[in-house]
């Protein structure tokens, strides 16, 4: 995948909720598998899902990650993002209620960004983190390179 764009540095995928047409666009949400040497990645899914959405990211050279989604996605990332400088996370519980495995998904995402220096967390991400005690130790022990931490208030 994405072999046809060898020079690509920046990929931006934005998926908004469209009333009446959500089902039509939901089925073909592209792509679920991102493997490339890109440096900047923005994935923003604003549409709630009925079934888990799978997102696999294999981008070893990533410097900037902006990820916004409901925690109903199945997240995969084989390697840590070793060069990651800045990350923005906006991860929320599904609108319809909790599915049960959100904390594991959230921790998986957090674990892949432990080298980050600048981190922005949305109020929804903080809500997820605060509802599990294991996140507290994660913040103190795992984020060893962290220089700046921002909390971002978002409108619902």
């Amino acid at each position, binding site marked *: 995948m994405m072999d046809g764009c060898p020079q690509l540095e920046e990929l931006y995928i934005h998926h*908004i909720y469209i009333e009446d047409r959500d089902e039509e666009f939901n089925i073909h949400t592209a792509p679920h598998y991102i493997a490339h040497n890109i440096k900047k990645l923005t994935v923003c899914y604003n549409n709630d899902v009925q079934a888990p959405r799978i997102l696999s990211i294999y981008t070893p050279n990533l410097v900037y990650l902006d990820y916004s989604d409901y925690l109903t996605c199945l997240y995969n990332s084989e390697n840590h993002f070793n060069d990651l400088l800045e990350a923005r996370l906006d991860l929320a519980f599904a609108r319809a209620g909790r599915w049960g495995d959100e904390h594991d998904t959230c921790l998986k995402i957090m674990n892949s960004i432990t080298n980050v220096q600048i981190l922005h967390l949305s109020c929804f991400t903080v809500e997820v983190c605060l509802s599990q005690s294991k996140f507290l130790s994660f913040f103190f022990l795992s984020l060893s390179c962290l220089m700046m931490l921002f909390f971002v208030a978002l409108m619902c």
Partner: protein
Amino acid sequence: METKRVLSSSGSIDSISPLPDELLSHILSFLPTKRAASTSILSKRWRTLFPLMNHLCASLYLDDTDLLYPERQTEEEYYVIHNSFRNFVDKTLSGCNNNSLKKFSLTYEDDDVQRMCLTTGMMSKALEQGVSDLELYIYMPLMYEPPRLLPDTVFINNTLVKLTLGTELCLGRSPWENVDLPLLKSLFLHTVKSCYM
């Protein structure tokens, strides 16, 4: 060098008119194309500046909501207005020198299946001019079998550096397969779908 000071009718100093044509036409390239084109009717001097911009360093920002008259609603008028928009885009693109076109941005609502091939033609023409920054915001309504709106040259192209595709647009193909964009650095996808559901 002697600086010419031009006084406008109100007596204040006109600091724009003494600027060379090339510079003025470069400034025009930052404006929405409708505004840039409308400067042609200001005076004899300005008549040539918009064509000069297209000849030297064109950046076209075309938006049908800006160019059309939404208050005209009858079917016949709708047809005439869309036709005049397409003619304007066509004429402007024809005035571009080969490789002078840097950016082509088109915001368009395409709900007439019969004439979608004309929209495809506009995009093809911009790509033939060697555009490096292509922005297509084309809204397509729900259709049983939507035609393939984007020309293949959007995905197989050796001049594109930045590509933006959106919103509520059906690509009619995968954005990842049979792609050859050797210079592409940035790809933006805003709520697009690959094919018919």
